[in-house]
């Protein structure tokens, strides 16, 4: 029974989504405001948060940032369709995925399931604990089994999509991944095309890894094509 926290100000939408998700077998708790949602986060301990971007008072964006400061719980943002800046800003604030309203319950459900699957862990064929080091001085370590990243010995706290993106890229250092490939590997989108998701996530990941602005050391942009991981 996946536990879903739904933060949505409109009562009808809240009830409708709760009804639909409950039918799919989710344990749903709802909050009408951002403050209420943040409070429930600690008591309810959800597996995934579905967050409306436009909330009265504390905005969805702010709620997203606050969740990210203390928790790596996956966040699916429900946003006004194609308000492109909203989507990008939301993704940069730390959302793992987004759906566009109005959304059919099965689409939302599929996104939730995909996000939850990713948290289950990155693929590891050998199943052997393996810690890689990257960089000239070995400053970056990736523990594929323990899903832990450290930089100069300090743990780097990553959201599920960020972690998964880093694991995917670093699994084949030097190989160029197109945004499309990353979208499928990391977000499991059958629908292709939202390269913004990839770009926003890369940007966030770079920031968290302390990459110098304008000169990324590990995750490099291959102009007009995609990204690659540079080990040294």
């Amino acid at each position, binding site marked *: 029974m996946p536990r879903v926290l739904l933060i949505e100000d*409109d009562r*009808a*939408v809240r*009830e*409708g*989504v709760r*009804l*639909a998700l409950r*039918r799919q077998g989710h344990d749903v708790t709802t909050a009408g405001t951002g403050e209420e949602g943040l409070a429930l986060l600690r008591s309810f301990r959800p597996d995934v948060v579905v967050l409306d971007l436009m909330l009265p008072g504390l905005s969805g964006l702010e709620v997203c940032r606050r969740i990210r400061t203390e928790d790596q719980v996956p966040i699916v943002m*429900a946003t*006004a*369709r*194609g308000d*492109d800046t909203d989507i990008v800003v939301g993704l940069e604030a730390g959302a793992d995925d987004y759906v*566009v*309203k*109005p*959304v*059919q*319950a*099965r689409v*939302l459900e599929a996104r939730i399931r995909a996000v939850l699957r990713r948290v289950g862990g990155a693929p590891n064929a050998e199943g052997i604990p393996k810690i890689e080091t990257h960089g000239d001085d070995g400053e970056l370590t990736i523990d594929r089994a323990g899903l832990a990243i450290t930089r100069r010995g300090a743990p780097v706290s990553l959201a599920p999509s960020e972690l998964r993106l880093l694991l995917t890229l670093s699994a084949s250092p030097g190989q160029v991944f*197109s*945004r*499309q490939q990353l979208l499928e590997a990391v977000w499991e989108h*059958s*629908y*292709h*095309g*939202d*390269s*913004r998701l990839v*770009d926003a996530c*890369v*940007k966030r990941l770079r920031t968290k890894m302390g990459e110098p*602005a*304008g*000169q*990324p050391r590990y995750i490099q*942009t291959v*102009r*007009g*094509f*995609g990204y690659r991981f540079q080990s040294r």
Partner: protein
Amino acid sequence: MKRPLRGLRGRLLVAFVLVTAVATLTTGALTFREARIAVLQQSQDTIIKRLRAHVDGLAPGIAYPPTQSDLESVAQEVAAAEPAQNWRVLATYRDLRATSRPQDAFTELTAGMRSAVGSRRAAVFQRVTTDGRSSLVVGLPVTFSEPAERSASGVSVFLTVPQTGEQGYVDALVTAIGRAVVPALGLAVLLALLAARGVLRPVRELRRATRSIAEGHLDTRLAVNGSDELADLSHTFNETAAALEESVAELRRMEARARRFVADVSHELRTPLAAMSAVTDVLDEDAARLDPDTAMAVRLISGETVKLARLVGDLMEISRFDAGAAGLQLDDLDLAESLRRTLAARGWQDTVDTRLPGPGELRGRVDPRRLDVAVANLVGNALRHGACPVQLRLYAREMPDAADDGGWAVIEVTDSGPGIPADVLPHVFDRFYKSDTARTRSEGSGLGLSITAENVRLHGGTVRAANREEGGGAVFTVEIPLGQEEKEVRET
């Protein structure tokens, strides 16, 4: 200026020069004519008077009928009377002739003049030009004063006087006129240029301002100087521009309000729709267990909610295009793969017949989401309004006159339906245009094709609709340049 003589400056120049030339030459010609007549008249009067005086003085002494020597002495005496004038004299009586100089052929004398002197009693004169030198020929019959009536003696005296002096006067006159014309023409050119500048400067200003308005700078105004017609024109121009600016501003305000309204309405519709959309699956699932009437009602609501959600989505997409908020998120894609995904995402891969290039054969920089929307709308439209088989083709088009080396991709969606009526064809990309007015609602939102057109336009491409030449079915052709400009948000 390509054709300097066709311009205002050239025309003014030509007009000024023509007027000056005509005026100067007419004045010169008239002056010349009068002066020449005056000069010649005076000299010939003097000459005739003197000749008559000399002849009259000699006439009584001439024996009658005169002999050759008589005539010779007459001729020589008359010539000797005016040594300074270089007179040449001929005296004749019937067949006898004597000249003041020996062997003088006296070629200036014409037969007509000779007979005129023979038949009249007055002096006859004629100006003759031989070898470029003009001379005056005067003929005078000698008359007897006795008996009472004057009668012709048959003796005639002819005189030739070279008119070099008079010719000199006339030549000087011509030279003077000529000298006057050249500076006058020069002055005319100068004045023409000044006048042209005076006229052309405001005209040029006007041209610049008109062009500026045409380029969309509606706040262009002219500086009004003076109070002539050109100033009036500038003034009128300013008023027109101000009126135009005001109208355009008003239109833009109205249009912005209308767009804002559409965007607001769509936005407001989204929240209730979000609630309804969330539960459509629940309704569909439960409908099977309800009694038939309720089940039908439930399914109807579910279906209409899905349509409404699509309509609102399309409306919001259109408002974003109208607001200019739609941007390109370019990515380097395998286009054939992209089209396959578009079909697969909607479950059309088995319905639609494809003719696509192989993997990696046709790559391009496009916005994947917008390309997907554009193609999905075209294929969906073909499936709904046309008939199967629907064919999706993709191929590269080489540009023979390629300025853009990137080339173009052509996407063709063909159906096998009845085709599009000719009167509908120009409107298929219009919003909410229904080909069949009786069918007030179709399955689509009525916005799909205009969204396609906007998406293609955003890529710098074109989309057009036509019917298949061999009949049966419509063809929609999208052409997109492959080498898009780098418009990506700056990364790193």
